[in-house]
């Protein structure tokens, strides 16, 4: 019988973070615990506001840090499925979303109230998302997807950037001889 004891599980940073947050929340609750009921509601409202803000900020910060360190891979963010280069619809959707989000943030910071989304902005976002979806559909219909095993017909290169993965399906009455 081996006398070796199993190694103690290492505490992850997430556990430490949750512990610190719990201690801070408990201390805040004990410090702000009021006897007056109206005061209690006020404090509760403000405490929930702060807690939600901290929670959302930490979620966003963790995702941002993972993106910055490369743990979340961004290399294929604009890559076209099965294609050679970047996808225009992905690029367009990314830029539209970023710019509109920044614009709304500036509006909120300037007016200190929640903005109304105009029909034009919603239409623009809808167009971008629809274009992206339809573009994916067209690619799937043409058989130009990532895992397409269709072999490429041997042919002289027409351009330097020939796509070796995507070959068209045989069309009815099609002559395969390149002319």
């Amino acid at each position, binding site marked *: 019988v081996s006398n070796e004891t199993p190694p103690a599980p290492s505490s992850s940073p997430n556990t430490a973070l949750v512990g610190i947050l719990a201690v801070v929340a408990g201390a805040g609750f004990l410090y702000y615990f009021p006897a007056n009921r109206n005061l209690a509601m*006020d404090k509760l409202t403000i405490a929930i506001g702060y807690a939600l803000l901290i929670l*959302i900020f930490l979620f966003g910060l963790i995702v941002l840090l993972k993106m910055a360190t490369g743990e979340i891979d961004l290399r294929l963010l604009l890559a076209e499925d099965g294609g050679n280069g970047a996808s225009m619809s992905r690029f367009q959707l990314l830029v539209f979303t970023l710019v509109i989000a920044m614009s709304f943030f500036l509006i909120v910071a300037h007016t200190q109230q929640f903005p109304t989304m105009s029909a034009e902005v919603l239409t623009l976002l809808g167009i971008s998302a629809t274009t992206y979806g339809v573009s994916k559909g067209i690619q799937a219909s043409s058989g130009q997807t990532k895992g397409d095993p269709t072999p490429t017909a041997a042919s002289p290169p027409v351009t330097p*950037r020939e796509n070796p993965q*995507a070959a068209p399906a045989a069309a009815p009455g099609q002559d395969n001889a*390149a002319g």
Partner: protein
Amino acid sequence: MASRTLAIRRGDLERLAGKRLLMANLASLAATCGLVLLGGLTALLLWRLVSGGIPCGGLLEGDVRTASGTITEFSPSRTQMLVISTYTLIYGVAQMVAHPELGIHMPRALVAVQVGSHAVYLVGKAYSLLVGRIDWKGRSQ
């Protein structure tokens, strides 16, 4: 009695002032957090785009189906879409910066142009990938 009423009112006023102060602090903190997150995300994506961490090669090139396979070449439909989208975004941001109290407002004509641009892109892409340069009578380019 009067002094007690005054004391209660003074307490209410102090409570109200404290609440407003905390809410104002919460709003400013939220603005700071939003700026950090959105600014950080934008800066990170821009940096990756500029440095090549997110490859943008072939953004203006599209695949065209031919009888012998799929070739990649310059795509005018992608170019027009990029130009019109850039113009629309610049117009919207300029409007928003000039009149932030009005929000983002765009003329319907510009939205219609955007719709047409996307339609041209999608039709061009569908034609290139599904039909391409195949002569159905037996010849191809």
